[in-house]
């Protein structure tokens, strides 16, 4: 059996594509953070890198979640207290927001980056 020229080109190109896919998925900068939105009707995952506005239906009405500038916040919700709106924006894995009356839960997931200051004292 003799391999032809294109066989080798194809094998190498495929190996290259595998390496590239692995790097972009698992390498530095990969495994980017995403916003996980849970509502009564299901669960949705959006990348934090793309700005968008998402409306989630709950028992009281629609909760509006805004993803902008790599952070997530609830900008409107038909609940009495508006605690969820007051909670502001979240942008780090592990942080979460919730609107309990309207049964909406928002969290940031992804690889935790160790580039922030945990705490400081004076």
């Amino acid at each position, binding site marked *: *059996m*003799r*391999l*032809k*020229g*294109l*066989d*080798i*080109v*194809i*094998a190498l190109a*495929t*190996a290259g*594509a*595998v390496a590239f*896919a*692995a790097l*972009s*998925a*698992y390498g530095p900068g*990969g*495994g980017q953070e*995403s916003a996980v939105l849970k509502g009564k009707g299901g669960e949705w*995952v959006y*990348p934090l890198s793309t700005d968008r506005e998402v409306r989630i239906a709950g028992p009281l009405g629609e909760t509006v979640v805004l993803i902008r500038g790599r952070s997530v916040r609830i900008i409107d919700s038909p609940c009495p207290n508006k605690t969820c709106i007051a909670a502001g924006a979240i942008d780090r894995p592990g942080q979460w927001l919730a609107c309990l009356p309207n049964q909406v839960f928002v969290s940031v997931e992804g690889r935790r980056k160790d580039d922030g200051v945990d705490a400081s004292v004076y």
Partner: protein
Amino acid sequence: MTASTPPFTDARGKTYADITALLGAFCFFLSALEYMVPKPLPFMRLGIANLPILLAVDLLPLPWYLALALVKVFGMSVISGSLFSYVALFSLAGTLTAAIVMWLARKAAGALISAVGVSILGAVASNAAQMGLAGLVVFGDAVRLIAPPFLAAGLATGAFLGVFAELFTARSAWYARATEETRG
């Protein structure tokens, strides 16, 4: 084969039908073998049932070749019990994409490519099509995370099948006779 000639009335058409039937049966058998092998992930297969399609690239004209691909999808779905589930859609998408890519690669590159390159292209195309569909239907953006092992598996199984097909076509008396009958 023209529209005015029914497929079985001439000797060439009968040869094509015989080869398609035999390779189709071969697909059923290999699908059964494939089904026995444990899979780490639902869609991660050895792809040995693609071997008959790989062999058919040089034997059958396009309509028969595509018919064989459909027979393979049907056989595999019947044997794995997934005919009436969405899994059959994945099988269909993967097999048809692979079949068309392998056909185009063979016809475009001719003597510059052997069954190894054709097979790798087919396996990777099949996996890519299934991941594309998985991204649409099930996983969304997370499909990026499962892509590397799938592509790597495609490279390995594709190369293995290609080497096998090269050795088989070089030695098989049946293949030599079939080649002669379809050309002569």
